[in-house]
């Protein structure tokens, strides 16, 4: 899918923040604030897959939970089809939640081990009072077939399934209410390569058949590149860059995105190379660096980066970045030219 201005925005996030208060130290008297998500702005278009990548502590999972309404934002708004989720009354929110579903990383810990596959997949329909009895069973079997499970597995329990099969159960459950948007939180990260390919293909097929919009949160860049139309890169609670998939990989403008993409090992010994290592570790989100949060690790950092926080802006069409010194005039491609 190409990026176009005419496409309809289905979810929009404005200045979204989530801060956690923590008590540490002697008698828990030291209070610190963890700025897990600290001012996000982005749009998700109908029918697209927006990938969100980043390393531990960047706030990508918190962002997913906020989108789903699983936690309350400290500041900022989330619009679903131009209505602010926070302004909705209970009934409206209940309806909106039907349209916003989630697939988790580890389907084993998210599936009740005492429920059968049929009960698990049908539960959302029962909870929302949509179906009962024979109709329910038929719908569940239809969902099972949709994700590649067989009817005779209806009365089995989750522990009887392999990781990939369990992820299929999780997907069927997420699809039960005919959602519009599915947040995939590390949905394929725990799976073996051969199973990961099956699930990625399934997600792609379902998106086409059911007109779904995905927010695909993951740390594994190859999978994100495979499935996403646009990709956002997060670092310490901030979106540092957001662009079309190929644009981001061919022309990363933020030094962090560049380093992150460069660090991914390419599965081909012909392309063995020295990595441009970025130094140091990711700072704690409870005490983020001043100015640009990446400046202590950035090879291009100047005094300005230490003092002034860079504005998140559109530097090229559909290419957003928060950096004082974007890599605009250099050849930044991390992708080998010939293959």
């Amino acid at each position, binding site marked *: 899918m190409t990026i176009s201005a005419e496409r309809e925005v289905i979810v929009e996030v404005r200045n979204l923040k989530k801060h956690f208060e923590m008590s540490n130290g002697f008698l828990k008297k030291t209070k610190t604030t963890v700025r897990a998500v600290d001012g996000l702005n982005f749009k998700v278009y109908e029918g697209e897959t927006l990938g969100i990548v980043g390393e531990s502590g960047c706030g990508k999972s918190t962002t997913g939970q906020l989108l789903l309404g699983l936690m309350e934002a400290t500041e900022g708004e989330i619009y679903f089809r131009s209505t602010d989720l926070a302004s909705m009354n209970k009934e409206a929110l209940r309806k909106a939640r039907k349209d916003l579903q989630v697939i988790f990383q580890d389907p084993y810990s998210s599936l009740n081990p005492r429920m059968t596959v049929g009960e698990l997949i049908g539960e959302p329909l029962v909870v929302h009072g949509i179906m009962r009895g024979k109709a329910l069973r038929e719908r569940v079997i239809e969902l099972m077939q949709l994700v590649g499970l067989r009817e005779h597995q209806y009365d089995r329990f989750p522990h009887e399934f392999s990781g990939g099969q369990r992820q299929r159960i999780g997907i069927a459950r997420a699809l039960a209410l005919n959602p519009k948007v599915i947040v995939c939180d590390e949905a394929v990260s725990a799976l*073996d390569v051969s199973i990961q*390919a099956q699930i990625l293909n399934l997600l792609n097929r379902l998106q086409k058949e059911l007109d779904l919009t995905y927010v695909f949160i993951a740390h594994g860049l190859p999978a994100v590149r495979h499935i996403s139309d646009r990709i956002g890169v997060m670092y310490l609670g901030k979106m540092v860059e957001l662009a079309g998939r190929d644009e981001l990989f061919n022309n990363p403008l933020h030094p962090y995105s560049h380093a992150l993409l460069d660090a991914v090992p390419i599965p081909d010994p012909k392309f063995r190379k020295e990595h441009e*290592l970025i130094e140091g570790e990711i700072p704690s989100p409870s005490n983020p660096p001043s100015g640009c949060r990446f400046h202590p690790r950035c090879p291009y950092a100047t005094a300005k980066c230490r003092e002034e926080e860079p504005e998140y802006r559109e530097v090229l069409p559909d290419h957003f970045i928060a950096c004082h010194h974007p890599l605009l005039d250099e050849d930044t491609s991390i992708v080998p030219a010939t293959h």
Partner: protein
Amino acid sequence: MGEELLKVDGLKVRFKTDDGYITTVNGVSFSVKKGETLAIVGESGSGKSVTSLALMGILPPNGEVVDGDVTYKDKDLRTLSKKDYRKIRGNDISMIFQEPMTALNPVFTIGFQLREPLMLHEGLSKKEAQARGVEMLRNVGISDAEKVMGRFPHQLSGGMRQRVMIAMALSCNPELLIADEPTTALDVTIQAQILTLLRNLKESSNTSIMIITHDLGVVAELADRVIVMYAGEVVEVATVHELFESPQHPYTKGLLDSMPKIHDVVNELYSIEGTVPNPAEMPQGCKFHPRCPFGDEECVQTHPNLLNVKGDHAARCIKLAKKELVV
């Protein structure tokens, strides 16, 4: 390169479970040569980690080696007494694990844990050991080494802990380093740092490395030779270039094709049907046949041997012998 440091021949490991014995490693043979990096690749349940634990003599209590030879420089490791094994483990072969937190002792400082093996295996005094410890931490890229020596494991980040583990594993200058998924739990920028560290180590000290991983990207970055394992068996052995350029076994080929490529995006990924078999219900004949696009009646009947394709490149598939397979 050339001299064989470690030789494994017909290794067979089984585990006692409530439902009887299950064999998870079944006749695995390979060797690690001096100065080379050998990668063992496989998905979960392939037996790659159990193989490494068996080599080190640290299988869990319900596991046992039932057959095969493990020779380290003409020493038969299987007949070694516990005491002699421990000597080899500290001095000659070291191991690093996926999650360093479980391998470091949480109640002792990093300094204490680094000094201990040096004092034990090399007979250094505490002061000498402290100095060596600081030096070793510097070698693995920790700049404020003195400070880190006084820290406890939980006070360090994951990448830092993995560095400490590597420093510790290298402290007695082992000839062979066994690394079991050393970067799997790390963020990608930290993974790049650790992989660079391992690569430099190989160049500077000629240490042999045996890396166990599921990540073909890590293999491509680091390995000289590769062993692919499936369901407790070696299904393919080749140099890293051979393996990626002309994989012979259908499983290897499927594995390579099912990886999303960062530099070559396709619409639909190739995927291997089905799942890895449960060790309690192993298929007859070739263990990959239920998932193999080329599997037929013959594959159900015959268990294939490793077959040389070209030079040291071998694969376990009967179709190769009959030249029926054009991969």
